[in-house]
């Protein structure tokens, strides 16, 4: 059995494995929140970020993950550590969050699966890609800031590798997303290290919209 065959089998049995994956995702998310609640050190930030990223992989519940991540980061900010970093993180996540909320509402309102972000509904894979990309790009983009805050380079690299790996795993279903992932990472890295808030905002929005569009196009082509 090849890797593709294995993945196909997993995909075909989504209805059986879905509940297991959802439970795993929730557990990982809870773990991430627990870490943040216990400790606001840089290492805890990384562990929490990894848990949340893993939760994204485990559970096809993008909007839920987005909200939960923001909640966890806000919870961390209340503890008084890395607040500037988390503020930037939230700024990066928010457009995606709004897109998810709008998508859910409009799909419900019009009782349709096809809408401006219908990629989210095209398959389990594409529904997870935008949040995964943000999760993967964030540590890369924030590396200079994280280092400035005292985080070790190896921790940042490890985080980026795991998050990037998670995104790449999903990108197997949509190869074009690998390119998008790289482009998004570079754009976000440039944006976050820039001091202009509107640059961050516009690039983030652009990346979110571009990712959604291209993954949709890829999905349809495949």
């Amino acid at each position, binding site marked *: 059995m090849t890797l593709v065959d294995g993945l196909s089998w997993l995909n075909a049995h989504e209805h059986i494995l879905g509940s297991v994956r959802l439970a795993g995702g929730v557990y990982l998310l809870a773990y991430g929140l627990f870490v943040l609640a216990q400790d606001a050190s840089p290492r805890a930030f990384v562990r929490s970020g990894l848990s949340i990223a893993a939760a994204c992989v485990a559970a096809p519940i993008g909007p839920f993950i987005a909200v939960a991540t923001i909640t966890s980061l806000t919870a961390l900010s209340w503890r008084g550590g890395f607040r500037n970093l*988390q*503020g930037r993180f939230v700024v990066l996540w*928010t457009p995606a969050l709004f897109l998810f909320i709008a998508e859910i509402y*409009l799909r419900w309102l019009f009782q349709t699966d096809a809408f401006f972000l219908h990629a989210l509904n095209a398959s389990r894979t594409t529904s997870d890609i935008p949040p995964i990309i943000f999760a993967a790009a964030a540590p890369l983009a924030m590396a200079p800031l994280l280092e400035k805050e005292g985080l070790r380079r190896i921790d940042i690299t490890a985080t980026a590798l795991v998050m990037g790996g998670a995104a790449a795993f999903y990108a197997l279903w949509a190869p074009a997303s690998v390119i998008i992932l790289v482009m998004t990472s570079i754009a976000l890295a440039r944006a976050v290290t820039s001091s202009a808030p509107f640059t*961050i905002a516009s690039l983030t929005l652009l990346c979110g919209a571009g990712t959604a569009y291209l993954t949709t196009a890829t999905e349809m082509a495949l």
Partner: protein
Amino acid sequence: MMISHQADTQAHLSAEADDRQTPVSSAAADLEGLNVFARLGRFPIGDDVFGVARELRCLYSDKNSPSPTEKAALGKNAQHTPLRETKLVSRRTFSEALQRRYQEKANDEAVSGLHRTAPAASAKHLMSTGQWIVAIAILASLLVGLAIAPIAALITLNAAATLYLVGAILFRLYLAWSVVDHKLDGDAPAIPADADLPTVTILLPLYRETRSLPILADSISALDYPKEKLDIKLILEADDRGTLKEAERLGLDQQFDFIIVPPGAPQTKPKACNYALAFSRGALTVIYDAEDTPEPDQLKKAAAAFASGPEDMVCVQARLNYYNADENWLTRLFALEYALWFDSLLPALHKMDAPIPLGGTSNIFITEKLRELGGWDPYNVTEDADLGLRIARRGFRTGLIDSTTLEEANCKTPNWLRQRSRWMKGYIQTWFVNMREPSAMSGKGGLGGFLSTHMFIGGTVFSALINPILWAVFAYWLATRSEGVNALFPEPLMTLNLFALLFGNALFIYLAMLAPLKRGWPALSPAALLAPIYWWLTSIAAYKAVWQLITRPWFWEKTRHGVSAASDAKRRAAIARVRAANGVIKSDAA
């Protein structure tokens, strides 16, 4: 506790000296330190300081020498002026004598001056006859419409509200986009040499502010400006003995003039400022609130802006934000709101030459022009915004300076609601006053100026009033999927409503989220996600404002200051510094 005053260079004018009846000799030495204290621009006596001296039978002297020009003028006058009957008294005694002499006239001018000279600019009467006619006509049409064709009438109302909301969303988006490259610390004009700096009157209107006073006094003392060019007026209401006592305890009479505003309605900050303006001698006039901490070089930056700015610029506004921004969720959202307003939207309005609704503090005026404009409207409870629009209406301009005054953000919800309801009430007053002559509303800003005045004055209140209604309709529809509600949202209107609901709310939250990044305060950004709760509070304040406008139109809802944890720490440090600076020490025996 015994308090003693330390001896200083003004010992010869100490409290004991005030009581002496020693006539001042005509010797030049006695005149050397004469302070040109009584430049009452609007009174008949004008610049004739010796005229004042003759009337009041006293003179004020301190250690500060007059400028060479003043010396020459004084010397010339002294030769012709009989001063034999004139007493030499302290600054405070002289000020009190001056206020006694001119109290009635200054008070009358403060209360009625604007209404007498420009009744259309005053909020003494909320609506003009023409406005009443228009309002009644609109109401009558609405009632007739509801009676004859209720669905069509409600759709019309819905369409009007939706079009306004969509317009407000697009306008804000445009404003935010137009200042993408704006930096808070942009190129500033060169600051003039000390000798070229103008005299500045600092108005400090206070009411029951014993807790904030030390912080304010400390902040004013820290201003980087030649002390002899500051004319500081501590403006107190006649019934506010507590703040006066605290000022005396801190020894502020060494440095500040105490202006006691006579009792009488309306008891408002603008009336107090107008009253003090009559006794001001600065070429520039600035207002600071009780809880303010301006950047030390703010007045110098203002002087530089006036020196290099256009001829028609009569006012400059500094930015405001909060020193306790991070205290709780309310202060965070308040700080985000101010960051968005002062750091992004005001620069955008300025860029398009639109009228600038002034903030209540840290606006610096050319005194002469301020008097020409009629000062502040004592009947308007957002006299600051009103004056900003009047400046534009009269063809003048307001500039912005790259300097921030930090204030104490309201950290308690009831206190916040009191303050916000007053602002909302004032916005309604200001909108009605300005709508008496709509064609002049835009200032030099054309259509953009006209729109901005509606969006930020009338529109702020309208949005706050309409939001709960729209959300209630939405919630009802979500719960029932009522066909009756569906009928009010025909297809094109539905699309616009969806745009306002999804894009509008997201945009307003996201703009608030981005606002603190310019200041390097990204830690505040997540608080923007709580903005909808803040909007609900604003709506409560708006409804309270409407009620109060009917029942108590000129009532000044007092905001309590000095209640935050951050202000406690600042206060303790400030008390020690201020008392030391003014030569007040605790007795060892205390």
